[in-house]
C-alpha cells in the first residue's frame, strides 16, 4: 500500500465534500433529526396505559380500589364503563388496553372471606405492553389487598398478625429508574450510524461510476485497497462527527447517562464505522446500480440492526438458530459496546470481545470489498 496515493484520493474526496456544503449539511443534520425522532419515539415505558373500569358493585370498597387505579401513574382511567359490552367494544376498537371488572358481590365476598377475583381484561395483541400492564395492575390490587387485610387483622385484635411477612427491596444498577430511553437510545446511535455509514459510502462510489471517473482511477497505478481506504477515510471523519453529535444529543438532550470512557467510545465507533463504510462500499461496487445499492443497503442495515442487534429485542430470548444468525450482524457488537459504555461505564479493557469481533469483521469486509472491486473491473 502506498500512503501517498491513498492520501491523494482522500484529499480529492475531502475537496469534493467541502465544495458541496449542502451534502455536508445533510450528512450532519440528518442524523441529529433521526436521533431526535427516535429518542422521543422509541420508548417502551408503559405509563398512562388507557384503562376502562367496569364497577358492577359501586360500593365504597369498589370505589377505593378504583381510586387505586386512578392514583397510579401507570394508568389513565379513561372511563368508568356502564356495562360489559361497552368495555368489550372499547378493547376491540383500541380505546383502552386494559379493562378492570369489579364484580357485583365484591364487598360481600370481602366481608365473609370468600376469595374475590378482580378481572383484568387485557388487550393481548401487544404482549409486552399487556405484560407490563398486568404487572402494574397486580401491584395496585395487591397493595389494596394488603391494606384490607391489615385493616381486618387490626379490627379483629390480631395486630401481631398485621404485618406483611416479606417485603421486596430493589436495588437497580446501571439504569436506576428503569427508564426505557436509557436502554434504547444508545442503540439508536448504532441504528443511525449504520444507515448513515452505508448511505455515505455507497453514494460516493456510485457518483464515481456515473461520472466515469472510476475508470480514470482504475487506469492509474492505484490499487483497489488504496482506492477504498482513500475514498472512505474522509467519510470516517464525517461519521465520527455524526457519532459524537448523536452521543452528545443523547446525553445532553435526553439525559442518558454516559459513564464509560470516551476513548472506548471513539475506538468502538471507529471500528464500527470502518465495518459499515466497508459494507456500503462493497454493496455499491458489487451492484453498480443505485437502485440495487439502495435495496441491499437497506436490507443489511435497517432491519438487522433494529431486530438482531439487541437494540430493543433481547438476544438471549431468541431461539438458538436466530442467536447464531445474530453473530453475523455487525451492529450487535457495537450496540452491546454502546450500552455497556453508556450505562455500564465500560472502558476499552471491558470491551475486548466486541472489539475483536468488529476488527475481524472489518478485515473480512475489506478483503471481500477489494475482491469485488477487482472482479468488477475485469
Amino acid at each position: 500500500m502506498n500512503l501517498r496515493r491513498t492520501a491523494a484520493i482522500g484529499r480529492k474526496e475531502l475537496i469534493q465534500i467541502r465544495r458541496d456544503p449542502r451534502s455536508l449539511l445533510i450528512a450532519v443534520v440528518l442524523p441529529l433529526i433521526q436521533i431526535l425522532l427516535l429518542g422521543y419515539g422509541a420508548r417502551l415505558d408503559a405509563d398512562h396505559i388507557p384503562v376502562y373500569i367496569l364497577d358492577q358493585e359501586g360500593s365504597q370498597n369498589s370505589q377505593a380500589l378504583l381510586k387505586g387505579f386512578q392514583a397510579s401513574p401507570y394508568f389513565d382511567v379513561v372511563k368508568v364503563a356502564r356495562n360489559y359490552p361497552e368495555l368489550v367494544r372499547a378493547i376491540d376498537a383500541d380505546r383502552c388496553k386494559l379493562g378492570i371488572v369489579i364484580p357485583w358481590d365484591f364487598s360481600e365476598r370481602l366481608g365473609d372471606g370468600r376469595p374475590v377475583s378482580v378481572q383484568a381484561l387485557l388487550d393481548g395483541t401487544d404482549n409486552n405492553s399487556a405484560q407490563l400492564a398486568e404487572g402494574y395492575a397486580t401491584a395496585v390490587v395487591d397493595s389494596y389487598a394488603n391494606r384490607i387485610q391489615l385493616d381486618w387483622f387490626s379490627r379483629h385484635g390480631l395486630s401481631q398478625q398485621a404485618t406483611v411477612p416479606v417485603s421486596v427491596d430493589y436495588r437497580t444498577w446501571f439504569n436506576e429508574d428503569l427508564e426505557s430511553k436509557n436502554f434504547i437510545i444508545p442503540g439508536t446511535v448504532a441504528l443511525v450510524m449504520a444507515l448513515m455509514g452505508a448511505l455515505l459510502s455507497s453514494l460516493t462510489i456510485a457518483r464515481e461510476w456515473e461520472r466515469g471517473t472510476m475508470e480514470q482511477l482504475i487506469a492509474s497505478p492505484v490499487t483497489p485497497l488504496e482506492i477504498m481506504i482513500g475514498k472512505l477515510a474522509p467519510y470516517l471523519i464525517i461519521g465520527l462527527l455524526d457519532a459524537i453529535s448523536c452521543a452528545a444529543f443523547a446525553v445532553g438532550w435526553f439525559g442518558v447517562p454516559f459513564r464509560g470512557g470516551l476513548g472506548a467510545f471513539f475506538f468502538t465507533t471507529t471500528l464500527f464505522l470502518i465495518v459499515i463504510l466497508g459494507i456500503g462500499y462493497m454493496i455499491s461496487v458489487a451492484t453498480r446500480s443505485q437502485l440495487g445499492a439502495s435495496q441491499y443497503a437497506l436490507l443489511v442495515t435497517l432491519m438487522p440492526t433494529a431486530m438482531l442487534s439487541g437494540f430493543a429485542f433481547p438476544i438471549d430470548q431468541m431461539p438458538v438458530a436466530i442467536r447464531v444468525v445474530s453473530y453475523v450482524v455487525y451492529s450487535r457488537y457495537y450496540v452491546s459496546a454502546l450500552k455497556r459504555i453508556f450505562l455500564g461505564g465500560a472502558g476499552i479493557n471491558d470491551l475486548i470481545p466486541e472489539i475483536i469481533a468488529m476488527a475481524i469483521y472489518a478485515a473480512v469486509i475489506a478483503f471481500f470489498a477489494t475482491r469485488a472491486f477487482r472482479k468488477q473491473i475485469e
Partner: protein
Amino acid sequence: MLNRVWRMIIKEFVQLKRDRYARFVLIVPPILQMLIYGYAATFEVNHVKIAVIDYDHSQESRDLLSRFTFTGRFEAAKILNNERELKSLIGESDIPLALKIGPGFAEALRKGETAHLQVIVDGSNSNTALIAVGYVNQIANQFSQDYARNRLNQVMPAMVANVPQIDLAPRPWYNPDLNSQWFFVPGVIGSITLILVVNITAFAIVREREIGTLEQIMVTPIRPFELILGKTIPFFLVGLADVVLVAVVGTLWFQVPFLGNPLVLLLGVTLFLLSTLGVGLLISTLCSTQQQAFASGFFFLNPAFILSGFAFPITSMPRAMQMLTYLNPLRYFLVILRGTFLKGVGLNVLWPQMTALAALTFVLLVVSVARFRKSID
C-alpha cells in the same frame, strides 16, 4: 388512454423480468426476513437467569427461592457465597437479576416482623427488568399471603376462612398466551412491505429522469396522470404479490391465527400499498437524482419503521411525537393487520384507519402529480 397506460405497465414488467437483482430482491429476502425477524422480535421474558445469595440457609429462605425456579420464568444460574461476587456478575454476564436473602430472614418471619428479600437488578434492559420485577413481586406477594395464612392458621385456625382475599385474574384477549410472535409477525409483514415498496417506487421516476427517457415520454401525448398510473400499477401488483407471499409464509410458519375477514384485510392492504406508493412517488418527484432518492428513502424509512407501533407503543410516545405518527401509513396498517389477524374485527372498528390511509393516499398522489407537472420545467 388505456393503451398508453397498458404500454407503460408492460414495459415495467419486461424491465423487471430482465433485472436479475430486482427479481431476487423481491422474492428471497422478504421470505428470509419474515422467518428470521419473526423469531427475533420478541419481548418475552422467560428463563431469566438469576444469581442467588442465601445467607440465611433456612427452611423459609429455601422455600421462597424455590418458588422462583418453579415457574420457568427464572433459572438459578449461579449460587453465590457473598455480595462481592455480584460486582463482577451483574452487567458483565448474561445474568440480569440477583436475589439476596440476608441472615435473620426466617427469624424475622417467625417473630411476625417484616423480612426482607433484596433484589439486585441490571436495569440496562429496562423492559426485561420491569417485567422480571413484576414476576418477582407476584412471587414474593404469593409467598407473603401464604405465609400469613399459615401463621394465622397456627394461632386461630377458625379465623383463616374469614380473611379477605383479593387477586387479579388477568384475561388476555386475542393472544391468551401473550405470545410475542402473534404480535410481531403481522408487524414484520407490514414493515417488510413498507421498506420494499417505498424503496422501489422512490426510484421509479427519478431513474427515468436521469437516463433521459422521462423527457422522451413527456413529449408523447401521455398525460402526467397516465404516466403516474402506468408507473404505479406495476409496483402495486409487485407489492401485492409480496404482501401475499410474506403473509402466507409468516402465518403458516408461525401459526398465527387469522380470525378476521380476508376481504377487510385485502382492502387494508390495498390502501396501505397505495399510500406507500404515494410516499415513494413523492420522493421520486421531489428528487432530481437517484442519489437524493436513495438518501430520502433511507431517512423516511427508519423513523417510519421505528415509530409505527411495530415494537414501541405509540401511547408511550410524547404527545407531539404521537401526532407525527399520524403521517405514517405503517401506523394504520399495523392496526389493521393486528385487528384482522388477532382480533377478528371488521370495518365497523377499522374504518378510522381505512379512512386515514385513503386520505393519506389521496393527498400524496395529488401532491406527486402536481409536483410532477412542475418538475418538468
